[in-house]
């Protein structure tokens, strides 16, 4: 999956308008990156990428690019 496709998946997961996110988007600036947003990210990474996200890993995410890199 390409990075634009992963970004589109993130936007769909967080129910954001298309084009809201870029690789440089700072997660701390996103209202959607709250506890529920983090949970939906955990589910997404598990279901779509087979990757287990931990709280510590999520804490280390600064930008959308960090999530994309984790997705692999």
């Amino acid at each position: 999956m390409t990075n634009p496709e992963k970004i589109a998946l993130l936007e769909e997961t967080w129910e954001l308008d298309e084009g809201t996110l870029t690789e440089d988007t700072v997660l701390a600036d996103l209202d959607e990156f709250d506890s529920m947003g983090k949970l939906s990210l955990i589910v997404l990474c598990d279901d779509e990428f087979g990757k287990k996200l931990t709280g510590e890993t999520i804490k280390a995410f600064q930008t959308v690019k960090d999530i994309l890199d984790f997705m692999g």
Partner: protein
Amino acid sequence: MKIYIGKREEYSSFELLQKAYWIRYSETVSEESIVRNSNGKPYFKSLTMPFFSISHSGDYLACVFDEDEVGLDIQKIRRIPQIVIRKYLHTVSTDPVQQIFEWTKIESYGKMNGSGIPTEDDYDQGVFVSTSELDGYAITICTKSEKNQAIELVYI
């Protein structure tokens, strides 16, 4: 049951806890007085001190004290991602507000037990009390003590 509410722009979680504790018990608490169990749930180290729970969402932080295990969740009312609804919500309601309240029940129960997100079968203990008194937010506490079930919001 009193829920202490503060603005996130004014307080950190610990600062809110500290101020609320002072208001409630006229005593100060230090960060060293708090320990976490193996699941990461925070407690006061002293057995003579109450249980507590803290939550934040949107512009607000909230905390509550109780004589028994307690979980608190505050959520800004917004649409829940479908991926979360499909996986975790037990309700059949399609009303976003009802779904948020259901979510706060799940979170508060998990925080009370310190066991993460419960399944539907796990709802075997605890009393849920919810309020929408804070405009635009859903708040639910889950407690094992069956008294003091009326919620009073205290803005600090």
